[in-house]
């Protein structure tokens, strides 16, 4: 298990009422699951139809960056974590 820092932005931050926290997990999925367990309001913002699917799927508009690298370029939710990794969870911001 790795100890990682999670940073929340935009409406995720508002819903959780916190900007960052320390969590542990083996991969990105573990970290996001313990995040949404702690802050259930985030579940529907991060995962696609959480009540219907057995294996969690990340919403297509959510971006998770590990130390500045988008996990969609890595192994997605299966990407392994190391101690001191910083995860930024970014909801869609695309208006202009």
């Amino acid at each position, binding site marked *: 298990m790795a100890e990682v820092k999670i940073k929340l*932005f935009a409406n995720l931050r508002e819903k959780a009422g916190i900007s960052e926290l320390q969590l542990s997990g083996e991969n990105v999925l573990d970290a996001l699951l313990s995040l949404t367990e702690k802050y259930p309001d985030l579940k529907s913002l991060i995962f696609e139809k959480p009540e219907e699917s057995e294996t969690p799927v990340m919403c297509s508009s959510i971006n998770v*960056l590990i130390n500045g*690298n988008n996990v969609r370029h890595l192994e997605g939710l299966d990407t392994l974590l190391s101690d001191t990794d910083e995860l930024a969870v970014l909801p869609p911001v695309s*208006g*202009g």
Partner: protein
Amino acid sequence: MNDFEREKYNRQILLFGEEGQEKLKNAKVLVAGAGGLGSPVSTYLAIAGVGKIILADFDSVDPSNLNRQFLHHEKDIGRLKVESAKEKLLSMNPDISVETIAEMLTESNLEALVPECDVIVDALDNLETRHMLNRLAIKRRIPLIHGAVTGYDGQVTTIVPGETPCFYCIFPRISRKEVFPVLGVTPGIIGSIQANEAIKFLTGQGKLLEGRLLFWNGLSGNFSEISLSKLNNCPVCGYLSKETENK
């Protein structure tokens, strides 16, 4: 530069000299989008004396634009945004020129429609066109200043081809365009930062938001930022990194 221009730009000539002002005068900037972000971006570039502003937007003014898109007034409803914006920008500063592109930018017309320019400012409202502009900026090797907003939140980063991650490195996915909530102040803040980045780049002042994604949250009144990393072998910008390594 004539005496009136020296007087008009006096307060910023104190910052970067007549030399800097000449650089702005000779600059050409594409502002993609004449809406919420495009209003503050093009206004600040115009009154700073950026010689040529190329404004691209295919849309017409709608009542729902008026809470934030301050270049458009009630009397402009139904008018092409680029025409409405051009009129206001030239009224603020008749010494600059404003070119307009009123066609929708597509993969096939982008190259031909966008004339040569020094920097591109992303004041768009959708991810698809952002990816197209990113590819154009990488191909032409000119900076792309990304900005986006929703609600009370906004983000900015400056993409320098070959130096920083490109838009695809950061946000590979395209999600569909949606009606988003927004307070006019949010694009006001983000667009002002984008104009600041463009002016810094053009005059060679300060440190750009390179490889840094800056976030603004209006509800808490906080800025925060994260560092970004380049994608190895990025299909869009990867070849530029290789060129740099081989030098």
